[in-house]
């Protein structure tokens, strides 16, 4: 029932974005889309690449002698900066293509994976990471942190692949 009401509403919102002044300007400009997309691709690279450093540390693959919280303190500000840039640039891309993106399966999968990545990070930070003081010196983190790391690596890989696939549909 909710889906019956919700889906036409979302489609309508997407159409509004698509038809708006800004959306149309980006779409009809020769250079805007490629430039914004390049920024988006490179900033996503930074998000996934920097969070991977923390994930690999918790799995015991790199920087084994560096405390986990020190790695997180160095890496997470970069991840968040990258995320802000990729979110803003991604939203601008969506703005110009919203009506087409709405039904795009790769776009939908990407959004679901993004939400799951957010949930994974939330569970990690409110859960096992709170006791990081006790385990951060170990070469490999406890299993709950290692699971979070593997899930994070998997989800961000999926986000990159799904994001690229949007253009194939």
């Amino acid at each position, binding site marked *: 029932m909710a889906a019956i009401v919700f889906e036409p509403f979302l489609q309508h919102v997407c159409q509004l974005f698509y038809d708006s002044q800004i959306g149309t300007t980006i779409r009809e400009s020769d250079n805007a889309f490629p430039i914004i997309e390049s920024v988006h*691709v490179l900033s996503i690279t930074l998000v*996934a690449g920097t969070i991977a450093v923390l994930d690999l540390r918790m799995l015991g693959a790199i920087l084994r002698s560096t405390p986990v919280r020190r790695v997180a303190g*160095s890496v997470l500000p970069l991840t968040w900066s990258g995320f802000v840039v990729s979110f803003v640039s991604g939203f601008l891309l969506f703005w110009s293509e919203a009506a087409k993106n709405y039904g795009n399966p790769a776009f939908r999968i990407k959004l679901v994976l993004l939400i799951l990545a957010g949930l994974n990070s939330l569970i990690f930070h409110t859960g096992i990471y709170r006791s990081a003081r006790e385990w951060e010196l170990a070469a490999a983190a406890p299993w709950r942190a290692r699971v979070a790391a593997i899930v994070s690596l998997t989800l961000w890989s999926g986000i990159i692949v799904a994001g690229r696939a949007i253009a194939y549909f």
Partner: protein
Amino acid sequence: MQPLFIALGHSALGHYMQTSVWGFAVVEAIHLLALAVLGGSVLVVDLRLLGVIFRKESTRTLDRDLSRLLLGSLVILILTGIAMVSEEALKCYFSPAFRWKMTLLAVAVLFYFTIHRHALLRADINGLTAWSRIAAAISMGLWLGVGVAGRAIGFL
């Protein structure tokens, strides 16, 4: 160089990439994932050389662990890159963006394993100097250039 690109396009790999439905998409996805790892490790190492992050960590340790990531992803990037070029070898050969990318890549790799590496190892003994910061800035600029030129191959 042109005969090399023609040969690549006519090779078994080229033939597979040109005719397979999913071949290019899968190879390109792997290329992008490796790019993320390379971008992340370059950024972490260079921000360390700039003194922004990991200030308490020895540059030697960071270099050992992150260079391994960088090298591993670079090998994957080059292998998947060759496969992608084989799909449209001559188009790449004549593409200005592709030529820029290859030039920047050669300079970036050379720089990384010579001057940049020297700066990283020296930083452990001498601390951060103006030279190490300049090396970090040049390295980030070169790798960013490789990425931007790479994306531009699809547009130009």
